[in-house]
């Protein structure tokens, strides 16, 4: 069984489904969207991060690094070509500026973190959301986690990019899910490949098939549309999404306003993304754009709802 690194288990989330939820963030994703909100979740392998804001420059880490990979003059501080991920620096860092990105956790480890918050799920109608990264990248692990959650009667929700093997999904995950939030980003296949790294054929196909099944089984399935300046929030794309949704009999979608906080996260893992420099990508999504997209969907018969 492939074991994922878990980036974080975030308690008390009010934005990732109904009620109060714990969100399990996986590391690793089959797509590589240029705007990815959690850039540290793209790679499934171990990484190290450095947060300049926390650093007190005590110098302890430089003393312990056997590879001499740490340098104040390096804008990312860590020379990742030299770094062997021995984590001696992380363990010596008093301020928490140096850190492991992700932690290997067993299903049991995750359950131990989540269960104390179960009383809050119960009073609020909340539960657990699997997010990432892409949980479907680890089918067997995720399946076991979901089963464990269901054994404890906890509401389960999956946030997915939709790129997965449908049969395995239906077999291993679907039965244990109460709700699925499914990203629909770009309809144009070429643009999708350009910005997300892969074609969207599989994604759209998966969505259509799950839609039919979920309706029958009374499971919640929401398409979610991230609004990214000039990439997803164009009039053409919105119209295309609306048409696609209509074609599979879906009449509701939620829009996710753009937020540029990923730039900082990308700095921490030493990634110098070319898209960081584009002007449209550095500011928060503005309301007129959101309203415009909403209108386009509305006109096409798709109502916007808060997920």
């Amino acid at each position, binding site marked *: 069984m492939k074991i994922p690194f878990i980036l974080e288990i*975030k*308690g*008390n989330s*009010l934005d990732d489904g109904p*009620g*109060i939820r714990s969100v399990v963030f996986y590391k690793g994703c089959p797509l590589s969207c240029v705007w990815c909100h959690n850039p540290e979740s793209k790679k499934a392998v171990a990484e190290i991060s450095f947060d300049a804001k926390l650093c*007190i420059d*005590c110098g*302890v880490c430089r003393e312990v690094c056997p590879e001499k990979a740490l340098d104040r003059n390096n804008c990312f501080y860590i020379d990742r070509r030299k770094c062997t991920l021995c984590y001696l620096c992380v363990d010596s860092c*008093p*301020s*928490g500026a140096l850190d492991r990105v992700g932690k290997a956790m067993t299903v049991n480890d995750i359950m131990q973190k989540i269960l*104390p*918050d179960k*009383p*809050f799920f*119960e*009073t*609020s109608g*909340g539960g657990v959301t699997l997010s990432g990264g892409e949980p479907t990248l680890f089918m067997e692990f995720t399946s076991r986690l979901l089963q464990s959650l269901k054994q404890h009667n906890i509401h389960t929700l999956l946030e997915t990019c939709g790129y997965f093997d449908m049969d395995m999904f239906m077999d291993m995950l679907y039965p244990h899910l109460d709700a699925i939030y499914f990203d629909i980003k770009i309809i144009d296949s070429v643009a999708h490949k350009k910005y997300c790294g892969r074609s969207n054929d599989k994604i759209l196909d998966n969505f259509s098939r799950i839609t039919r099944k979920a309706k029958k089984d009374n499971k919640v399935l929401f398409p979610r549309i991230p609004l990214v300046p000039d990439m997803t929030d164009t009039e053409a794309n919105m119209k295309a999404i609306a048409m696609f949704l209509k074609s599979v009999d879906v009449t509701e979608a939620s829009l996710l306003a753009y937020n540029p906080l990923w730039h900082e996260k990308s700095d921490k893992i030493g990634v110098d993304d070319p898209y960081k420099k584009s002007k449209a990508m550095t500011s928060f999504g503005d309301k007129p754009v959101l309203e415009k997209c909403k209108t386009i969907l509305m006109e096409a018969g798709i109502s916007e709802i808060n997920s």
Partner: protein
Amino acid sequence: MQATAQINSKSYTNTLANLFFKFFALNFNNRPSLKQYLKGDDGWLNFTFGIKTESGSMEQAMRFENGKVMVLKNIPSQMDAQLIFADENAVKEAATKPPNRLMLALMENRIVMHGNLGYLQLINFYLSLLLKQIHVAKLKKETKMENRDYNASAAAKNSIDSRKLRQIKAASIDPGIRCLPEPYLSEYSLHDFPRLKDFLDIHLKTRPAICHERAEILTRWYRENGFETDKNGQPWVAELRQAQAFKYLMENRKPIIRKNDLIAGTNTTKEIGVIIYPDAHGTMIWGELLTAPYRPLNPYDVTDETVDVLHNRVFPFWLHRNFRQWVREKKDYPLCQKLDERFAACFLWKTVALSHTILNYPEILKIGTKGIIVKIDREMGETPGSEKQKLDSFLAMKITLEGINAYAKNLSVEAARLAKQETDPCRKDELIRLADICRRVPENPCVTLDEAVNAMWIIWVGVHMENTNAGFSLGRLDQWLQPYFLADMEKLAGEEEKRQYIKHAIELIGCFYMRCTDHLPLIPDIGNYLFGGSSSDQAITLGGVTPDGEDAVNDMTYIFLKVTEMLSIRDPNVNARYNKGKNSESYLKRLCEVNLNTTATPSIHNDEAVMASLAEFNYPAQHLRDWSATGCVEPTLSGRHIGHTNCMMFNMVAALEMALNNGWHPLMRWNVGPKTGDIEAGDFQDYESFFNAFAAQLCFLADQTCGYNNLLGEAHQVLRPTPFISALIEGPMKSGRDVTKGGALYNSSGTACIGLADITDSLMIIKKFVFEEKKVSFQELRKAVNTNFKNDPALLALIKNKAQLFGSGDPEALATANRVAKLAHDCFGEHTNYRGGKYTAGFWSMSNHVAFGTLTGALPSGRLAGKAFTPGLTPEPHASKSILDNIRDVAGLDPKSMNNNIAFNVKVVPAANETHQRIVDNIYSYVKTYCDLGGMQMQLNVVSSKTLRDAMEHPENYQNLLVRISGYNAYFVTLNRDMQMELIERAEFGI
């Protein structure tokens, strides 16, 4: 030879001080306008006052004798008061800083006071006479610098007009609702009640004024009739003396009916008045009489007449007749008193009041004072003449009830007089009705809601005339008023009539709330730093269960909640009991909604946990279920319990500092505690031995403070027994003893133990980092603490980031918190008070977590010197990013160790685009789960740090911004800067 040496060691400052004293003496000896103040109506004020530095480099004194001021070279051994300055800088500061800073320097132990505080205040008064222009200019400058000189009227209007509330409707109707068609009363808003809007406007814009009425009338009576001995030279029976004086006061004070009010009577002669209690701490304002109108924080108006009355007629009489001074003189100035007067380890509220209780209001409303007098007469008839003390107590109680009846009659006459003059027919009718009501009650049983509310108020005024205004509480008003509401409703037939009546009931309760704002406790400027922004803390308690254990939520519960929401004022302090076994979800949702809409109130109590915390006392279930919050949050068994639940604020962290320093307290520069081990000498081989040292220091401080509380209790018995309160509480009628002497059915004394989270986190660092993981030696840690981590940034970062904190969900930290709480509980629990009751331990802090924080050095937890502690027992802001960890840990504390309740503050900020319903639902989920998990009390501030920062910059836009400090509510703009920052720095959770 010795004398010469002494003179030589004196400094330049000494010369300056000498010159200043001579200048002072010259002025007072020669200028008639000043000289006149050297005496009061009873004659010359004769005393000796001195100042010196700790090293002796400066020493000067003045003797005031028969109208002459003499400068002395040395402080004579028989002096009345002296100030000891830490060093010459402290002298310079005192000479150059604004006068209010002198008291602050005392608090910070830059200056130590020795002797009678009254004389220090008198000296301050003289200084302000001499230097008034300079002092006022300094204070005005400070006010301007702090942005506090804005137009209060415009700010009040702005804040009322801009308030918009969203409201949901009740999803279900509680079984106890008889009349309300929609319990949340969502159809009403403040705009439907112009009368209340006017009162609110007055409340928000009016500057309080010092009222000398009570002090003047009482002092007049005592001067005429004697205090220690009566006119015939016979020693007074204290109860009878107090009763006679009270009756005289009630007969002679001005009966006032506020324009347009539905409730007759006032606590003072001012629109908003500060009542003076010279038998307690009243003389503390002596030194500020001339400057109080100009101080930056919560200024008071003081008329020339008030200055004249207080200085000449009142204060001199009480210089030796107050609680502190009684202990100083009769008990030989004990160590415990000296400790209290250094501010850093404790603050004994017993120096101010024996308050914080709840009278038997249901009985008063039901049988009237007449019925109580019948009972007293019966008891007196059955008591043999040989039991003189008992008979005297009964007689005293009866006299006070005659006094309150006389006041009501005077109000009735006044209402009739006003009615005659009134031209508006509606108001005329109201006044005629008021005249009728006050003619009947509180003497006779109440029949209508209007009568019951007016009777409550008149009794409430009586309480404040007898005893200091500090946390007297109103109790379960929804329970006690519901029968009168129902009786009124029953008489109505038509739907519209009923609707109008419900609206009237809301307005009447609104008037009652606004009446409760007519008086404020006396806060000398030092109090602005110790208890900033606090008002009277008149707790009202709603909901919960009936004495029989049934769901108590009723129509009046929701009417009170509506009024709480509409007015959103700091006082009365609304507390709600939520009994998860009996109360509805709909009720709890409404509590959450009111908290959201008011931003800070009510405070919510888990009924079952609070009752469980009192299990050790084996109270009968019927009495236990009738508990109410008192002052801030503390439980009192309504109507039969003197629990003085805020007898002291206790700084637990002082014990930690003393354990780290082998009994020495750094700020007080005092080797006061027991020798419990020297870190430098390696006396601590393991964590347990250090914990024991901490425990020993804590017990030492608990011994001292309980000792002082008991001595002050004796002072109360001699100086101010309270026959009025005794008549209206269950117990004295059987025991024949005043409540100050243990006459009530139940007795206890409640403490507020401050710093639980700071201590837990510090102990965890010592346990893990020093002894288990050996990341740092104890000596190194102590050195870092003593130098405020200045040279140890890496250690500080390590502590801040890698420690196991209370509130992070760490089971070991939680266990440590439970252990410390139990230790405090046990240290206090082993003491018996002067009334035969037990001491209880609470974990809330009013605002003293800020003041005590100011007086405490850095801690092993990484909290830096002078920074505020966390409020109540709230975890550190950086304990966890998830509010759920905080909630679970606090709920995991054992109520049995917290029998004087807790204050758990949570600051939440709703997302801008979230619906009102969802926000209410989210808050509900937190509170409900917290109660399910066994948490005792929770209070939410629904405001962002951003808003608070803006309010600091632009107070004129936030005149009514309500915040919960720790147990009580305050207007943010009235707080001192440290307290404002503490609120801003609290953890903030988005919802």
